[in-house]
C-alpha cells in the first residue's frame, strides 16, 4: 500500500521557477503558502535565461511603456490581448525595481543606474529604430532572477516541497461551481503520495520544449502542469504558437542569446553574406525571432547553408572586441567553446533554430485566473509564466518579454490568489483523492510490453521536428498526428525496469512521456486547424495572415479519451482578441 500524506494551505503554488517564486513572495507574507516543485528551486529553467528583461526604464535613452506595448502587440503579429500587453509594459518598471530592491545584481551604467541594451523587436516610437530596453545581468539574467527570488523566499521562510512531482489535481463542486480542492504529488525520494489542499492553487510549471528534438529547454520541461489542466477537461489556448529561437548551437539546440545580436553579432550564410538585409532591411539581424528563424531555415533550404552538410548558418561575433564579449556575453561564448570547440573571438559560430518557448498554454485573464471557456473563470485556480497564456505574446514572443511576464503575472497570481483565499473556504476533499495518481503510476509499473520510453520519446521528438517546426503544412501536420496516434497505442505497451520506491526516475520519465504525447497532439492539431500564417506559426500552404478568419485565439478542448483516430477527442473553438489601441497592420521591419 502506498502511503498517503495530507497537507492544508491557503495558497498552493505548483512550480518554483521565476513565476512560481514571484507568486510565493507575494503570497507568503499574507497566507499560509506552499510551493511544490519537481526540481530544487534554483534548478528551474528560468536560470538558463540569458539576455535580459524588458522594461521602459529609460535609463539610457528615451523610452515609454506605450512604445513597449506597441512592440509587444506588433511582435505578436496582433494576436496579443492588448489589455494584458498594457499591463505587462506598465508594470515592467516596478517589476525591475522590485528585483533590484530584492538584491538582483544588474549591470550598471557609469552613473550607477541599471544598464539597458537592445533586443530584437524592441523599438523607439513605433518601429523607428532599435531601443535599449533590456535590463540585464551579463548574459545570465535568468540565473540572477532565479537566485534572487530564491534568496528572497529563504528570507521570508517560504515552505517548499522539493522534488515533489504534481501529477493530478482534484476538482470538486462548491456552490454549483467546479473548483480545485487539492493537487496530488509524488515524492521522488520516498515514492509516497502527498495530497496538498489549498483554497487557491497556482500553476507555474513552465514550458514543454521536450516535445521537440532540437530545443533550448531542459530535460525536465515536459509540460506536466499544462497536461494536468488538459486532462481535467479545461481548455488550452493558442497551442499552435511555439517559438523557434534562431540561434541554437547547431546540432545541439543549446541557446545563444539574442543578446549576441543585440551587441552587434551578425548572421551570415555560407558565402559570408549578411542575409538578414534581404529579409528585414530596417532592423536586419534584430528582426523578431519568427522572421529570423524562417530566414535561416530558408537559407539552408535554398542551399546557402554552411558546414559539410550545409545545414546551418553562422553567427559572426569576430568583429566585436574580445573585452566586450567577455563583459557582456561570457557564458554563451563559453557554450560555443565547450560544446562545439569554436572560438567566438576568431571564428563564427554554427547556429540553427531551436524549439524555445510556448506562447500558448493555460488560458488566463489579467488577474491570472484560469478560464474554463472564453470568459468564465475557475474560482481559486491561477496560472502564470510560460505555462499560462494571458496572452501577452500572441503569435510570437519578443525576447526579454518572458522574464518580464513571469515577474508581472507571477506577482499578480500571488496577489489575487491571496485575495481569493482570504474569503474562500477550504473546498471539501472528495474521497479517494489519491486514486487517480495511484492508478496512473500502477499502470506504468505493471505494464509488461516491450516498448521503451526512450524510443517512443525520440520518435515523438523526431516527428515534431520534421513536421511541426518552422515550416508546416496540412500534410506534415497530419503526418505528425498520425505518428502520435501510433505512439499512443505503443505507449500502452511500455515497460520500465526500475520497480523500486525511492528516486524512481525511470517511472517518472514514463509518466512525463504521457504528458508530452498529450501536448504534442494538441499542438499539431491546433496547427492544422489554423489555416493561415501568423507569427511563429507558418503554413506553407497558407502563406498569408488571414485576419478575416483567424484574428482569434484558438481554444482547444479535450472531449473524452483519445481513441487512436487522428485528432479524435480534441475540439477547437475560437476566442476574440482584445484590441484597445492598435488595429492589425502588416508586420514589416
Amino acid at each position: 500500500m502506498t502511503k498517503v500524506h495530507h497537507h492544508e494551505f491557503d495558497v498552493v503554488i505548483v512550480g518554483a521557477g521565476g513565476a512560481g517564486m514571484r507568486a510565493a513572495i507575494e503570497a507568503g507574507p499574507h497566507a499560509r503558502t506552499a510551493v511544490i516543485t519537481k526540481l530544487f528551486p534554483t534548478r528551474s529553467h528560468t536560470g538558463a535565461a540569458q539576455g535580459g528583461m524588458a522594461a521602459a526604464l529609460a535609463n539610457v535613452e528615451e523610452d515609454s511603456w506605450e512604445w513597449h506595448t506597441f512592440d509587444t502587440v506588433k511582435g505578436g503579429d496582433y494576436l496579443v490581448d492588448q489589455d494584458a500587453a498594457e499591463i505587462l509594459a506598465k508594470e515592467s518598471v516596478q517589476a525591475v525595481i522590485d528585483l533590484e530592491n530584492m538584491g538582483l545584481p544588474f549591470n550598471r551604467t557609469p552613473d550607477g543606474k541599471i544598464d539597458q541594451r537592445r533586443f530584437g523587436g524592441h523599438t523607439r516610437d513605433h518601429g523607428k529604430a532599435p531601443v535599449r530596453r533590456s535590463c540585464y545581468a551579463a548574459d545570465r539574467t535568468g540565473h540572477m532572477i532565479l537566485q534572487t527570488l530564491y534568496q528572497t523566499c529563504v528570507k521570508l521562510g517560504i515552505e517548499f516541497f522539493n522534488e515533489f512531482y504534481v501529477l493530478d489535481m482534484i476538482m470538486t463542486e462548491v456552490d454549483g461551481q467546479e473548483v480545485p480542492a487539492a493537487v496530488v504529488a509524488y515524492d521522488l525520494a520516498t515514492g509516497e503520495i502527498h495530497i496538498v489542499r489549498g483554497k487557491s492553487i497556482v500553476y507555474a510549471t513552465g514550458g514543454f520544449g521536450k516535445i521537440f528534438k532540437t530545443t533550448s529547454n531542459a530535460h525536465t520541461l515536459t509540460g506536466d502542469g499544462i497536461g494536468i489542466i488538459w486532462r481535467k477537461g479545461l481548455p488550452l489556448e493558442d497551442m499552435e504558437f511555439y517559438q523557434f529561437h534562431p540561434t541554437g548551437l547547431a546540432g545541439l539546440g543549446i541557446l545563444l542569446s539574442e543578446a549576441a545580436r543585440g551587441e552587434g553579432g551578425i548572421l551570415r550564410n555560407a558565402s559570408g553574406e549578411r542575409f538578414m538585409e534581404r529579409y528585414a532591411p530596417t532592423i536586419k539581424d534584430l528582426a523578431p525571432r519568427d522572421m529570423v528563424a524562417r530566414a535561416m531555415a530558408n537559407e539552408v533550404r535554398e542551399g546557402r547553408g554552411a558546414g559539410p552538410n550545409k545545414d546551418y548558418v553562422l553567427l559572426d561575433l569576430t568583429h566585436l572586441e574580445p573585452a566586450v564579449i567577455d563583459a557582456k556575453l561570457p557564458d554563451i561564448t563559453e557554450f560555443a567553446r565547450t560544446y562545439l570547440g569554436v572560438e567566438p573571438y576568431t571564428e563564427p559560430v554554427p547556429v540553427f533554430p531551436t524549439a524555445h518557448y510556448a506562447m500558448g498554454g493555460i488560458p488566463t485573464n489579467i488577474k491570472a485566473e484560469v478560464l474554463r471557456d472564453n470568459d468564465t473563470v475557475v474560482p481559486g485556480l491561477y496560472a502564470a509564466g510560460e505555462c499560462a497564456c494571458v496572452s501577452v505574446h500572441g503569435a510570437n514572443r519578443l525576447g526579454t518579454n518572458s522574464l518580464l511576464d513571469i515577474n508581472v503575472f507571477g506577482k499578480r497570481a500571488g496577489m489575487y490568489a491571496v485575495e481569493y483565499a482570504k474569503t474562500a473556504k477550504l473546498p471539501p476533499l472528495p474521497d479517494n483523492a489519491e486514486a487517480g495518481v495511484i492508478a496512473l503510476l500502477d499502470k506504468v509499473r505493471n505494464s509488461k510490453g516491450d516498448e521503451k520510453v526512450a524510443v517512443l520519446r525520440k520518435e515523438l521528438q523526431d516527428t515534431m521536428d520534421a513536421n511541426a517546426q518552422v515550416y508546416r503544412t496540412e500534410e506534415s501536420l497530419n503526418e505528425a498526428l498520425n505518428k502520435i496516434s501510433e505512439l499512443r497505442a505503443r505507449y500502452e505497451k511500455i515497460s520500465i525496469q526500475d520497480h523500486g520506491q525511492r528516486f524512481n526516475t525511470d517511472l517518472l520519465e514514463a509518466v512525463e512521456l504521457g504528458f508530452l504525447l498529450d501536448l504534442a497532439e494538441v499542438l499539431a492539431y491546433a496547427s492544422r486547424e489554423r489555416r493561415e500564417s501568423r507569427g511563429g506559426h507558418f503554413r506553407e500552404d497558407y502563406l498569408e495572415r488571414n485576419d478575416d478568419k483567424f484574428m482569434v485565439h484558438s481554444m482547444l478542448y479535450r472531449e473524452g479519451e483519445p481513441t487512436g483516430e487522428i485528432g479524435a477527442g480534441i475540439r477547437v473553438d475560437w476566442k476574440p482578441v482584445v484590441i484597445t489601441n492598435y488595429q492589425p497592420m502588416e508586420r514589416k521591419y
Partner: protein
Amino acid sequence: MSDVKEIAEIPSFTVKLSIRRFDPEKSEEASWQEYEVEMHATDRVLDALHKIKWEQDGSLTFRRSCAHGVCGSDAVRINGRNRLACKTLIKDLDINSTITVEPIKGLPVEKDLIVDMNPFYQAYKDINPFLVANDKPEKERLQSPEDRARYDDTTKCILCAACTTSCPVFWTDGQYFGPAAIVNAHRFIFDSRDEEADVRLDILNDKEGVWRCRTTFNCTEACPRGIEVTKAIAEVKQAILRGRP
C-alpha cells in the same frame, strides 16, 4: 570574416564506464558496475549516462535538468574529480581506459549518483543568503560598475556542491560551512547595497567557518562556473581581520 571552420564527421567509438551503484532497497552495499556505450567525441558524460539509462539499464539513477551547465543538478565524481556530467566532454577524458563515475563525496548517498543535498543547503541558509537593506528606495538603488564588479564572480554560483564536496576538510568534518556557503556569503558581504556584512562575517568567524579552510584549491579546480573560490574565501578571511568588507 575569418575562415569558416568546418565541423567534420564526428568520430564515434566504444567507451567503457564504471559507475558506482547503490540502492538500499536492494542491498546495503554499494558496488561498481561496468557498461559499454557507443559515443561520439563531442558527447558529454551526461549523454553516456542517458544512453545507459535509456538503452541498457533504466534503474541507473542520477539528477539532471538543463544539460548545459547552468542548473547545478549533475555534479558527480568523474575519474576522481568533481565535475558536471553535462559539461564534461568524452573527448576530454582518456577514452582508452574506463571512465569512473561516482557520487560526490561527503554527503549521504541516497541512490546511485544521487546524494542528500540537505546538509549542503542548510549551510547555505545559515549564512543568510539574501540582501539586507533597510532603506526604502523609490527607484533602483545606485551602484557603481566598480562596486558591482567587486562581487561579480561569486554571483555565478549555481549551488552544484562540486566545490564543497571536493574539500578534504568537509570530508572529515561535515559541520564545516564549506566553500559554497562562503562563496554565497561573499556575494552579499561585498555588495555595497547590503547592510549585514558584519553579521555574516561573524557567522563565518565561527570555529566551523573560514578558518577551517586549508587553501588546498580543490574547490577552485572543481567549480564548473570558474569561480575563484579560494580567492573569495581569502577575501572573507581578510574582511574578518579588518572588521569590515
